[in-house]
């Protein structure tokens, strides 16, 4: 049992960054999907869904990149996490399929009822995955029974007030990011209507975060082990939410969007600082440590080099996509673009 090397530490930071990017970028797509519930008719829903329509599957692959990097850098973390939270992951995957079906087929059926069903699938596929993702990592922080690096968790080991509340908080965070993003694009009455809804979500998020902090103190030991960074991050979250409310009221939409992303990053940072130096905490005291989960130097080097080489290209690709999305947003779509 040694300490993590610099390479391992930087790759851990990279993994957290990738998962946070997933929750911000795809989180905003989730948020837009959730917001379709505010729209009464199909035209309104379509108007909202044009925003994530061409980017959601690219953003979803940040999750793939994050999980695959965990796989190569910390194979035993990946193995224990994915098998330990089996049903949660299964439902994430299935709801991802629902969302894909919803996006692809929501206007393609001749029967209206079938199109409506697709909208429901899209809504569920947007609402539940962020909840489950946050629940999984919160549960790893709270602790589950582990023996021989294998997680043997029953339903009530995973579903606790803390994990459920973490999931709800994540849903609200994604919702507010999604709304702030959509508000940048739409115009007129719809913009003001959504702005009102977004404020409600932000107030709800504020309340959820207060309760979340109480649970964090009650169910985990993070504040005892790392008081200073945790208090700092909690204050960052508070600042982020307050700033979002302020900027939204002042109609400074670009900054308002960025303010809503702050809580997600800080929230992920809290979870992983709480976990460090472990990957999954054992209620019996034999936690799976990152060092025990790590792969050897050769594997790490390959993935580090691959990441260093590819991440700039990946980000450039995504910037290109968002550039065209912004530039051509007002050009109406044909059925090939949807």
């Amino acid at each position, binding site marked *: 049992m040694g300490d993590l090397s610099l390479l391992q530490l930087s790759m851990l930071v990279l993994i957290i960054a990738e998962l946070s990017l997933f929750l911000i970028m795809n989180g905003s797509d989730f948020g837009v999907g959730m917001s379709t519930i505010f729209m009464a008719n199909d035209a*309104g829903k379509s108007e909202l869904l044009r925003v994530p329509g061409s980017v959601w599957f690219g953003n*979803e692959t940040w999750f*793939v*990149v994050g999980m695959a990097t965990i796989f190569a850098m910390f194979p035993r973390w990946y*193995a224990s996490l994915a098998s330990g939270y*089996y049903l949660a992951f299964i439902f994430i995957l299935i709801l991802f399929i629902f969302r894909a079906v919803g996006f692809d087929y929501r206007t393609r059926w001749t029967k209206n009822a079938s199109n409506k069903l697709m909208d429901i699938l899209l809504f569920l596929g947007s609402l539940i995955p962020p909840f489950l993702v946050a629940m999984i990592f919160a549960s790893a922080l709270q602790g589950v029974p582990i023996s021989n690096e294998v997680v043997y968790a029953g339903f009530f080991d995973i579903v606790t007030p803390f994990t459920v509340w973490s999931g709800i908080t994540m849903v609200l965070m994604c919702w507010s990011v999604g709304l702030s993003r959509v508000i940048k694009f739409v115009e007129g009455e719809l913009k003001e209507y959504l702005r009102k809804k977004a404020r409600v979500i932000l107030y709800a998020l504020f309340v959820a975060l207060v309760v979340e902090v109480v649970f964090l103190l009650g169910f985990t030991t993070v504040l005892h082990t790392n008081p200073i960074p945790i208090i700092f991050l909690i204050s960052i979250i508070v600042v982020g939410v307050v700033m979002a409310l302020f900027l939204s009221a002042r109609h400074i939409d670009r900054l308002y969007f960025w303010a809503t992303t702050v809580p997600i990053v800080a929230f992920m940072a809290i979870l992983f600082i709480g976990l460090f130096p472990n990957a999954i905490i054992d209620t019996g005291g034999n936690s799976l440590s990152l060092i025990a989960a790590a792969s050897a130097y050769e594997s790490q080097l390959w993935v580090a080099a691959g990441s260093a080489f590819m991440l700039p290209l990946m980000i450039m690709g995504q910037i290109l996509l968002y550039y065209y999305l912004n530039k051509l947003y007002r050009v109406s779509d044909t059925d*090939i*673009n949807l």
Partner: protein
Amino acid sequence: MMDTLLVVTLSRWQFAVTVISHFIFVPTTIGLITVVVIFELLYAFGKKKGRDDYGRLALFFAKIAFFSFGAGIATGLVMELQFGMNWSEYSRFFGDVIGVPIALESLTAFFLEAVLLGLWRFTWGKINPRTHALFGILYLVTAYLSIFWIISVNAFMQNPVGLHMEDGVARLDTVFALLQNPQYLPEVLHVFFGIMILGGFVTAGISAWQILKKRNVEIFKRSVQIGLLIALPFSIVQAMLGDDQGTATGGLQPMKFSAGEARYNNEGSDDTGAPWYLVAWVDEKTQTVYGIEIPGLGSYFGGGKFTGEQEGMNEIAEAYHQEYDETVTASYEGNMDYYPPVALLFWALHIMVLIGYYYAIVSVMATILLHRKKKPIEEHPRILRALGITMWFPYVTLICGWIFAEVGRFPFVVYGLLTQLDAVSPNMTVGNISTSLTLFILIDLALIVMMIIMSHRTMKAGAPDLADYFSYSTPSDSDNPDSDNPGSGNPDSDNPDFFSLEVKNYG
């Protein structure tokens, strides 16, 4: 023990269901988009005559490909996470090795595939067609890269190289070792050619139906020819290459090879040849096989000559007992006879081989008949109907190929090093695996049915009209004398036309 064996069986079924559905969508997407990019290049850079036809064909086939793309991404995620969810011990012990190509795949391919497809789809008809075609090419490069990496993982499982044991787990030597695996090159080419055959035949088949149904006959005459010209070379090379892969398998995994031939006892000698069954009925209980034999061909497929001894499964099983009973398969406590499902492997291999030769024949015949000037294409209803049916066969052969490759690995996950029983997640319960398996069967079936319904509707609608899709000035509807050059004088930025177009108003 009983429960664990049931969990193993159900986990294998789940793997089969999810990988087969993934491998229905992925080759459809990659194969068709290869064709679409060819059409788009012909549209953007081709001669004025007939250019619009290619633009319409690109749109038509892209619509069908896009229906399978979203499903391909979603089912691909299932594949990636399944390594950890269902086969956690495999990931635990071999994650150092296989995690690396999977991570590199997500970095170099999966991510960019999704982003670039979004870019390509969103900008269609909105930007300069030449720039747009470039995005299509970029997408294709990343899609091919994903085959490059993923097959290296499978080749490792078929023939583990490039690893050493340390601290009780496998450690990676170097990624180059994975790519130098003797199993790798034939396998990756075999899969790639299979996808191209599918792309070619599906294009030709859909076009053939369109011609038979008299929808845009002149346009689809072009695509039926191009589809065939893609399928033809790959079908011929595949038939030769598949034989190479068979010989390689014979050396690396003798049990899989002999099961594919349904050969229980050693056959042939230095001056006699082992027979090859064209078709056969295999009784696995009594280990008897009744079928039509072709003398000598079995030796030829195994060793390249019509004479020579070929090992049967009985002798190979003896050798496996010696080699693995005490070590790798110890957890089976002696309940392991090493015989894979022989009838299944026999039929998977034989269907693939026989249809493979059929591809070569049908593509040669159809190419000759449909490229003749003498008689127009629409006057060949029989060959068109044959092509319309043949478009389903590549799905059958791809699935047969994977069944042979994967089921033939029995009982190993990593050949000779790790068994299915030892690879499966130890915390998996029958309840969990049954739940997920049922859900995947239902959802994957629904995905396939939806895909077929939507493709059929796209076919009925016929080739789309370019005018409906291009807000960017198209080469034909422009009065510009320079209109031979799409987008000439219209660099794709700062085009004021973008903003003068109809803006949807939902207020």
